[in-house]
């Protein structure tokens, strides 16, 4: 007699492994039950755009066969996984939240997806996101906004809002997202889950649909630090299909989660604590007090170029986006609006296919790259990016990790900020710096506001030093730092 959990709300990767080992359930039984639950729950949040039951059951069957044969089924055996719909899946529709790709069936798998399935993961479906990952609220999806499972009238954050919501809702154990300017950490903080953006180049971008190539990262979501770290270590490492993926060896992060942070030097950048909304600030201050209690040496530091990060980011990100999105021209990717001339066809296809935010970014990016403006905007921003990165380099000569807020405020109401693009851009201030520098960063839950809205604390570390970041996050979790977050 098997006892299969339906909601995945309380299930971790280790518990899936234990359940399979104890024959409490098979991978197929877990996949069937998870799919049924996720499909029934999905209308509440719109977190998934589509499910892939055939692929899920085939993967689960493979796991069961390996277990029956006495083989190692892999570190993620049978783990129900949600994948953001900007990461391509062979034979499974991948829309990027855009009308333009409504019918796009990729002919190959992203490297991250291949590696996770080799590790035994079971992909349940593809999650909703802002169109081409452009947005901070998930309201820019062509297929409808995602509702935050914690407060259904509020946004889950963006752009990986569907992945964060799925983990928070218990319709996936772990999920993949992508982060270009905060798109994993900010939704993780809004939904009360763990969200990780590794070092740039740590995870292959092969098969991640390009938004801004020098800033794009694949990242992970989980309920626990250990789950998010397990997912990352299963897919990280050099891939010949992505020339920017790093050769640096991937440590076994989860073997270093020993809770030992006594004497760890933690920096608080003063620029990140000015003008922070009161309740989010209070939760972060409580979290910092806990870090001190468990032995961290906390000190104030300065990252002086911070106030220039938003303009710097929105110049570079839009410039790269305008170039990357040029490929959606009606020739190759499923959608076309017929016109008599080739250029008329390009223009009509793109004019009808892209949503308002994508158009705004294509226009800004085209402008900052155009003749006469390149030096003043794009080249200038690349120089400022070097200064921001240098701020971090100097800071990490003094401290082992940096702790900061994730977002100036918790989840806001759907529709509340959609008419003010600049205000929405400004809300990315605490997360875009990590992407500009390419350093690893993550969000961990650190309690809720009086309205019951989750608050996230951000941890940043040196290039390739995810280990220190995870160790600190895990020690915080073990010390009760997540208490009151769920």
């Amino acid at each position: 007699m098997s006892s299969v959990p339906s909601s995945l709300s309380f299930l971790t990767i280790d518990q899936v492994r234990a359940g399979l080992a104890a024959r409490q359930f098979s991978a197929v039984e877990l996949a069937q039950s998870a799919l049924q639950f996720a499909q029934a729950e999905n209308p509440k949040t719109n977190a998934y755009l589509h499910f892939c039951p055939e692929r899920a059951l085939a993967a689960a069957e493979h796991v069961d066969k390996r277990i029956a044969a006495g083989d190692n089924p892999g570190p993620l055996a049978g783990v129900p996984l949600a994948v953001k719909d900007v990461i391509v899946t062979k034979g499974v529709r991948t829309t990027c939240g855009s009308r333009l790709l409504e019918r796009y069936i990729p002919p190959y798998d992203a490297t991250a997806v291949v590696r996770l399935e080799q590790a035994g993961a079971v992909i349940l479906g593809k999650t909703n996101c802002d169109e081409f990952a452009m947005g901070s609220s998930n309201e820019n999806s062509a297929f409808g906004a995602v509702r935050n499972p914690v407060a259904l009238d509020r946004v889950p954050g963006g752009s990986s809002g569907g992945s964060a919501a799925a983990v928070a809702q218990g319709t996936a154990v772990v999920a993949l997202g992508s982060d270009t300017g905060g798109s994993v950490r900010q939704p993780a903080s809004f939904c009360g889950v763990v969200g990780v953006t590794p070092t740039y180049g740590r995870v292959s971008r092969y098969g991640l649909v390009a938004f801004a190539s020098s800033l794009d990262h694949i990242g992970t979501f989980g309920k626990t630090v250990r789950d998010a770290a397990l997912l990352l270590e299963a897919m990280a490492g050099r891939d010949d299909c992505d020339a920017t993926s790093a050769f640096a060896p991937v440590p076994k992060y989860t073997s270093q989660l020993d809770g030992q942070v006594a004497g760890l030097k933690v920096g608080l950048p003063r620029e990140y604590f000015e003008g922070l909304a009161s309740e989010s600030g209070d939760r972060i201050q409580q979290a910092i007090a806990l870090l001190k209690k468990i032995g961290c040496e906390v000190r104030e530091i300065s990252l002086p170029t911070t106030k220039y990060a938003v303009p710097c980011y929105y110049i570079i990100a839009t410039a790269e986006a305008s170039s990357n999105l040029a490929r959606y021209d009606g020739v190759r990717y499923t959608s076309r609006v017929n016109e008599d001339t080739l250029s008329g066809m390009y223009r009509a296809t793109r004019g009808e296919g892209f949503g308002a935010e994508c158009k705004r970014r294509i226009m800004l990016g085209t402008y900052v790259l155009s003749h006469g403006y390149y030096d003043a905007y794009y080249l200038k921003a690349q120089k400022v990016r070097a200064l921001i990165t240098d701020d971090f380099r100097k800071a990490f000569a003094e401290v082992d990790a940096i702790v900061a807020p994730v977002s100036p405020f918790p989840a806001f109401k759907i529709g509340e900020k959609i008419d003010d693009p600049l205000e929405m851009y400004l809300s990315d201030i605490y997360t875009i710096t990590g992407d500009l520098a390419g350093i690893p960063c993550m969000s961990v839950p650190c309690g809720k506001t009086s309205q019951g809205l989750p608050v996230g604390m951000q941890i940043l570390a040196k290039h390739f030093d995810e280990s220190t970041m995870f160790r600190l996050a895990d020690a915080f979790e073990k010390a009760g730092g997540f208490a009151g977050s769920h």
Partner: protein
Amino acid sequence: MKITEPEVRYVADLANLKLTDSEITRLSRDMDEILTYMDALSELDTDAVEPMAQVLYQSGQTATLREDEPVPPLGNENALANAPLAGAGYYKVPKVIER
């Protein structure tokens, strides 16, 4: 004013985007506000700073060139499977050259 409506129309042309008049009006307002905000960067003296075009880090092995070994290609049929219009192994587009 950072950007005028005629300039917005010119940029839309460069970007191959067909926009409605109301989209142009809205974009002129948004882009003006955002570009004005971006001007803050001019406060910084960056004359001596090298532009950062890519994330650079110290890593043991940084060679990114691999051996040039052939691998099986995607194949014509797979490559064209998502084409809005294809024929005879090619993408088809409206006529470009008049005879």
